[in-house]
């Protein structure tokens, strides 16, 4: 399958500071792709380069196989939903949404029809004459989405579109955005620094840090098989332990050897091991190789978060069972719970 958009070794520098250090990325039709990463890692910059608001310093940007780096934004078949919506306050809801069509001098009756269709799609029918400044945050967000979608772009770019909404509304809108994407059937490139949002909505998650892409994969991939310590730490919580790969399917850490399912490392290579907190079971001290003392227990709603101090480190464990502080316990996990990663250099 051919990529709809392809970024090849894109770099960008602001004020002598390199913000993007070589981004390579393929984006396919109908894909919901999320750029995920901490603040300042270059997500918005990447998006602005795709939209055409900034120009990359180096690399190629292909759209349907054609280089478009030099194309101005108004010629690109992408539309953007901005973080702070950037609605036009001097126009009402109808005229905001109709803006793109009016620019193209579309016939009035068609405009009216299309705007109504969009309003229905985002659930704002009847709001045509309203002043955009009088709308709530969520409603403004919907107008911004309708305003972008009415142009029938091949790709919709969304820069933290839910950033300004409260938690509950956010959840609702996540669901709705996903629904809209299915309905209109176009590619969404979505920017967020909220890992939960990224995991629950995306087909593909792109984890970025410091101008580099750290990992590209499905939500399950990046969660279960983080490629490095950064991804493991950024997505979900994890216990990261330095160890040695004895040979295929055998790893050593904290004085013990464990069976695992990972292969392809050199013998005795220094590696790092990820143990997700929910993958560790607390058992009686004599039933496991690793042992330690419970130092704290905090109720988190669905589960307890228990910290266990072993000889070398503290382990974090998520479990629904209660264990008293001070108790001597054993930590058990199966070979498939162990995930071995390259050590970061």
């Amino acid at each position, binding site marked *: 399958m051919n990529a709809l958009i392809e970024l090849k070794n894109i770099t960008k520098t602001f004020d002598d500071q390199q913000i993007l250090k070589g981004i390579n990325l393929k984006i396919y039709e109908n894909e919901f792709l999320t750029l995920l990463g901490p603040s300042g890692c270059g997500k918005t910059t990447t998006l602005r380069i795709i939209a055409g608001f900034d120009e990359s310093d180096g690399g190629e940007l292909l759209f349907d196989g054609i280089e478009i780096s030099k194309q101005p934004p108004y010629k690109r078949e992408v*539309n953007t939903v*901005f973080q702070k919506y950037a609605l*036009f306050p001097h126009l009402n809801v109808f005229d905001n949404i109709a803006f793109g069509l009016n620019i193209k001098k579309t016939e009035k009756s068609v405009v009216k029809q299309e705007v109504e269709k969009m309003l229905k799609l985002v659930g704002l029918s009847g709001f045509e004459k309203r002043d955009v400044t009088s709308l709530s945050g969520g409603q403004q967000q919907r107008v911004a989405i309708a305003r972008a979608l009415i142009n029938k772009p091949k790709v919709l770019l969304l820069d933290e579109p839910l950033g300004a909404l409260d938690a509950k509304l956010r959840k609702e809108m996540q669901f709705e955005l996903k629904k809209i994407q299915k309905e209109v059937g176009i590619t969404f490139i979505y920017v967020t620094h909220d890992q939960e949002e990224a995991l629950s909505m995306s087909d593909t998650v792109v984890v970025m840090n410091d101008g580099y892409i750290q990992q590209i994969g499905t939500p399950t991939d990046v969660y279960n098989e983080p490629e490095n310590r950064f991804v493991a730490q950024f997505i979900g919580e994890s216990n990261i332990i330095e160890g040695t790969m004895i040979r295929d399917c055998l790893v050593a850490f904290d004085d013990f050897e464990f069976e695992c399912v990972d292969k392809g490392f050199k013998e005795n290579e220094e590696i790092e091991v990820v143990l997700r907190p929910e993958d560790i079971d607390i058992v009686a001290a004599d039933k496991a190789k690793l042992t330690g003392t419970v130092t704290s227990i905090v109720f988190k709603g669905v589960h307890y978060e228990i910290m266990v101090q072993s000889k070398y480190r503290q382990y974090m464990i998520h479990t629904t069972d209660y264990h008293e502080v001070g108790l001597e316990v054993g930590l058990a996990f199966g070979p498939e719970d162990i995930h071995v990663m390259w050590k970061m250099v």
Partner: protein
Amino acid sequence: MLKKLARISSGLYVALCFAFFYVPIIITMIFSFNSSRSFAKYTGFSLRWYQALINDSEIMAAVGVSVSVALFATAISTVLGTITAIGLSKSRRILKEWILNINNIPIMNPDIVTAIGLMILFTSLKIEKGYITMLLAHICFCTPYVITSVYPKIRELDNNIANAAMDLGATPFQALVKVIVPMIKPGIYAGMLLAFTMSIDDFVISYFVSGNGVENISMIVYNATKRINPTINALSTIVILAIVFAVVVVKLAPKVRSTSWFCALNEKIPKKTRRVFEAVCGVLIFVILLRCGGDAKTLKVYNAGEYIDDSLVTAFEEEYGCKVIYETFDSNESMYTKVMSGEKYDIIIPSDYMIERLAKEKFLQEIDKDRLKNLGNIMPRLMNQPFDPENKYSIPYFWGNVGILYDKTVVKTEDLEAGWEVLRNPAYKDNIYMYNSERDSFMIALKALGYSLNTSDRAELDRAYKWLVEQKERVNPIYMGDEVIDSMIAGNKAMAIVYSGDAAYIMSENENLGFYTPQSGTNLWIDGMVITNECKNDDLAYKWIDFMLEPQNASLNSETVGYSSPVEEAYKEISMTVYADNEAYVPRQDNQNDEFFRYQEPEIKRYCAELWTKVKSQ
């Protein structure tokens, strides 16, 4: 109880504020309908001044200049300022700060500095001064105001607004017109309004950068200081009503626009209005081009304000098939500044001491008397005066002296026999107007003490100073400018120091007044026509001088202006008809103590100025 008091006092406060703001305006409006010339006495309703306004081609032309310059300057500076402000918001921070600070300089700068800067610029670039230079200058000082009022509005914009528009398919220009401009409209309107008001009432800058007879309303009003013409009241009233109308329209506009009939109307109109707009622009540009188009045969005359009968200018133009560019100044000193800045005139009409100075600085052409056939019409007594022996450089235009204008019903004849000393008579305490001019005041003191008014003896000057200080202590006079004319017409004080020509005019309006010139001598003065070195068309210049010496012309001029004509026939005629029995029109010519002012050495001038400042601050 207390609340009621608070309400009443706050109401009173508001009323007082309003009174303070609006009473002057209302008085102006009332007096525009006055049937007489006075600003002090209302003598009955009449539309006389409105008629005079319409018939006054000079004022109407100035209104045209003011309005068209203001409109063009506003339009152009609004576009320039807005674009600059938008550009600025996109530039680097340091650049932005610098430019904004620099932008504030012309706003805070005294106008005079900007004015002189622009004048020097135009002169050094050899751009001929006139309509275009005035327009350029106005654009120049209006633009910073637009930038200052538009820029904050742009700062308020979400910086993705333009991106959003372009994202939706708008070209950068469409984004500007359809999104940015509508959003910063309040700022643009505010800037526009500021620019328009600044432009329409600007005097200082216009005065210095204009030329070739192009004058705006402020310049006309300012130069007409001698006789404040009630026509100005009529003009002010019309301007005020226009402003009120504009404010009402602006206030009502949003309401009107939302009504459906207006929308319907609006949808049909655009094409037509655009055509009308284009037509107006076309006409205005045509007018400008006409103004720029030079006429081969032109004469540039520079004279004091309200110092000619306008019809003479037209008559001269018709008789010799030429164009006269006629400009006015408000004092010899401001004339000197402008001329020294490189402004070129063919004929100037300065006073005696200034003629001497200009001649000394080799600024004037020697006059070839054989080319003047009317030279013989001048009274011999006025020729060959010390400031210009043999009349090498100047030909008299008007003449007169300085004396005491007094209220015959108040001042006793025997008191007047004291000469200038009557001005120190405690009987008239708080009842005297002195002339607020260092040279005239020292003249009085020096003459009262029996010295020459051109003395450079510091001891004599010190005694004159003492005389003036004592006068101030004894009678506490008011030092007045040209407002004295109106005040004396109204009969406000018992005595005033007045130029004979003004006195003749005041006496024709108030019959209780008399004019007295002390025996110990006074200042005799002559304003003369001179031809500058820059004169391009000396033939026309000689014709102008001859024309002014023509007896009929001289008497028409003298009748209108009220000053004594140097042309014997005209002088005799007027003194027997229009100003018969008016002792001020016939200044005495035979007193040996009377003297002309001479050019004052700078160092003496400075000394007098210091003493004069001390007198006034006593």
